[in-house]
């Protein structure tokens, strides 16, 4: 999209500066907000605040809203409620940044960027809000019926899939589909032998929604999801057989198998299940079960190259740093730095290692892990690098103590001769509060204009945006090293809406709209 086109598309937005500010606030929110509580705010407070800022941007332009949500590193939570909002509100005749076809692609893109469990959560959200228009029904059915892992997901998320299908089809149609599929199965699963009425029902509700050839696996999965026990697929049969046959658990997802064990095989241990299903663990599960696997004497393979830097730091904090993890972190930092639009000369990081950087109990150590991963990224994107911290930031250390950043900031400028200082902190300063602001004002007063940026890890912050150490220091809230790129876009949006949106589209358009 050329700049002129973007200018035209934004012509209906009157006050670019004001809107740019709002979009920046939106970016702060969508880059940080999750559906969980933080160290400082309850889940409900966060949800309310997030909904408010979503509504504000949506009311300006739903197309721009869609594009912003598609930016890499926007949290899944914001994408979930964003898609729900787009589907809940019909397009009106007003000008919008995206036309109807582009918006449809955008919604599809956003929905399919979500991992399956969050996509299903979003479908649940739509059902709870009673959003059942044609666009919603299509999205749900096409997403589920075209899922290449439908069999596996049916076993894992049976209840959620059933709720989604029943919401899209309606209770009566879902029941009809189930009966017809059973009949077809009775005819040796031959679609060709179905009666014209049966074929019409299957065509309308399944084939027309998906782009696959009718096959036994899909029919079995739908029947299983809708509660039928008359299914032939080996995994589905194993689901029922495992009630009395422990070895049948081997075909089930590990968490389902563990649930079955505790109900039907209480004499067997979780370690037995782990041994049986260890080959089926996802890479995420392989990481999370390391500790229990170790305790239970089960060896589960763990390949650090498959994980992002934040997860690796959390893992290393828990289980200990290894040369393999270090190497994987180095690789991640180099890859991340290549995707950054800037380098930093001599960068100095002031790292807040105070207690609050430990994060909320639901995401323990995450702020610190993000801080360390960002430090690696900045190091990789700098000619030279130095880090200052109250505690030597080895990953095994717990963040602790007070927050005294002002002295370290001054050291960064005075002793280290930084070209750019990054303060990684949750923004809560207490030794004393406001001292960084005074030092920044002092630096500017004597003509030292070293760029200083505050980077605040996800949710170690307040509801609205993040807590700033100083009004004179730009704040960049980040959920991950990948979100660092948002900084440039945000800065542009603050000063020049058109240029900011152009930068946004350069990143988003190729993926979401195929370069349109």
């Amino acid at each position: 999209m050329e700049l002129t086109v973007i200018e035209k598309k934004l012509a209906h937005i009157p006050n670019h500066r004001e809107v740019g500010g709002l979009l920046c606030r939106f970016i702060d929110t969508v880059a940080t907000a999750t559906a969980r509580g933080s160290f400082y705010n309850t889940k409900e407070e966060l949800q309310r605040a997030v909904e408010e800022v979503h509504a504000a941007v949506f009311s300006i332009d739903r197309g721009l809203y869609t594009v912003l949500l598609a930016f890499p590193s926007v949290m899944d939570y914001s994408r979930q409620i964003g898609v729900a909002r787009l589907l809940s509100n019909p397009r009106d005749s007003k000008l919008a940044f995206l036309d109807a076809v582009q918006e449809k692609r955008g919604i599809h893109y956003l929905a399919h960027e979500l991992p399956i469990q969050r996509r299903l959560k979003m479908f649940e959200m739509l059902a709870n809000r009673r959003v059942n228009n044609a666009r919603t029904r299509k999205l749900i059915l096409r997403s589920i019926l075209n899922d290449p892992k439908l069999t596996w997901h049916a076993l894992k998320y049976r209840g959620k899939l059933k709720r989604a299908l029943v919401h899209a089809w309606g209770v009566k149609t879902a029941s009809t589909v189930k009966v017809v599929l059973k009949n077809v199965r009775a005819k040796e699963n031959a679609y060709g032998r179905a009666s014209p009425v049966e074929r019409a029902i299957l065509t309308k509700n399944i084939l027309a929604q998906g782009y696959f050839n009718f096959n036994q696996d899909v029919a079995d999965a739908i029947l299983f999801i809708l509660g039928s026990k008359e299914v032939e697929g080996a995994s589905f049969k194993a689901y029922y057989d495992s009630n009395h046959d422990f070895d049948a658990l081997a075909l089930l997802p590990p968490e389902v198998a563990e649930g079955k064990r505790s109900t039907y095989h209480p004499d067997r241990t979780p370690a037995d299940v782990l041994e049986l299903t260890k080959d089926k663990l996802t890479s995420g599960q392989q990481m999370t079960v390391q500790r229990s696997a170790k305790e239970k004497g089960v060896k589960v393979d763990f390949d650090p190259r498959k994980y992002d830097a934040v997860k690796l730091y959390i893992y290393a904090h828990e289980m200990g740093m290894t040369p393999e993890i270090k190497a994987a972190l180095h690789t991640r930092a180099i890859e991340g730095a290549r995707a950054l639009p800037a380098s930093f000369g001599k960068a100095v990081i002031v790292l807040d290692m105070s207690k609050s950087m430990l994060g909320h109990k639901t995401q323990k150590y995450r702020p610190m892990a993000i801080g360390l991963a960002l430090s690696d990224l900045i190091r990789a994107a700098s000619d030279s690098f130095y880090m200052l911290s109250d505690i030597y930031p080895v990953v095994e250390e717990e963040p602790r103590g007070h927050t005294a950043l002002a002295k370290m900031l001054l050291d960064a400028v005075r002793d280290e001769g930084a070209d750019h200082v990054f303060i990684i902190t949750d923004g809560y300063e207490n030794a004393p509060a406001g001292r960084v602001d005074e030092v920044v004002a002092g630096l500017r007063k004597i003509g030292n204009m070293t760029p200083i940026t505050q980077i605040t890890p996800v949710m170690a912050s307040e509801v609205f945006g993040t807590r700033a150490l100083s009004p004179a220091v730009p704040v960049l809230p980040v959920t991950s090293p990948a979100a660092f790129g948002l900084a440039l876009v945000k800065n542009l949006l603050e000063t020049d809406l058109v240029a900011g949106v152009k930068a946004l589209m350069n990143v988003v358009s190729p993926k979401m709209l195929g370069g349109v």
Partner: protein
Amino acid sequence: MLTTLADILRGCEPGRVQSVGLMQVLPLLSTEETGPVTSPKALTVGTSHYGTLLFENPLNEVAIVPRDAGFLTGKSSQDHAMPVVGIIPGGMTRKFENAACIQETTGGMIKGKFEMIILPFLLREAALMTRERQEYSKLWNVIKRFNTAMGLRSSGHVDVFLNAFSSQLDQFVAEFEPVPRQVGAIFLVNGHVVGIERVPTYEYWLEIWQPLVRVCYGSLALYMRKHVENIPDTRVPLGQDFDDLAGLEEALRQATEGEDESAKAIVRELMQEPLEEKVETGVDGDVVSSLVSPHFAGQIVRRAGLVIYASILATQARLRQERSAVKAFAL
């Protein structure tokens, strides 16, 4: 018997002052070995009838229930609070008949593990004064006046205040942080000492930190914020007499040391303040005493003569005296 704050804080050393707004916290650090203590988290809490609290200590070590610990059930049974320090011998259950209900119109007994708070600062003196009365409703009127003073409806429910100011209290507790080796703190509001807290171990402090700072001192800070606008004299702003980096560094050093010193000077003045110590009870060698002076009141626990727990607050009289320009909180 007379004692002093210096005696009570023996074995501790001050940390670096943390300052945000009107509140300053001077951490007390120690690595003194006090002997094993079970912290409140390990206890099972229950009531046998209104105005009682039972504590079951499943571990072998003596447990210390902090003074004015309140337990929030979060359901349709009544929240209760202890007006005194409780000592629970290892492996034993102990009943306190002088507990107070802190939810006027909610009924129901409790048993289990519940969220612990330390009562709002402005209720604690009244709680201490009524520690010998066995009357479950003894704090309701005080709680009502406290809620009214905080701009809420007159209600004998502490949870009315907690719900209304939940986000502000969360914000407040986030401002301050426990530091390594910390076993206590001296709290200053508006440049005056309002509380001295000491516990046996760092682990115990980590457990009590949030309840103490969030509800007890957080509520006082919220109350004071309504009446005081200027930052206290103990806060030292960065000087402006510099024209290069070295000068700025010197100004920062002076401001940092000045702020630390000015808070510590206030505390130092109080170290020889005489406090009347009266032994109240003793369990397995741990002796609970009350402390009274015109300015402070509280309780301590001594083990082999050394103080291992202290919770001493400025009296209402002292607060009124020091805030002559500020409308007094009347109870």
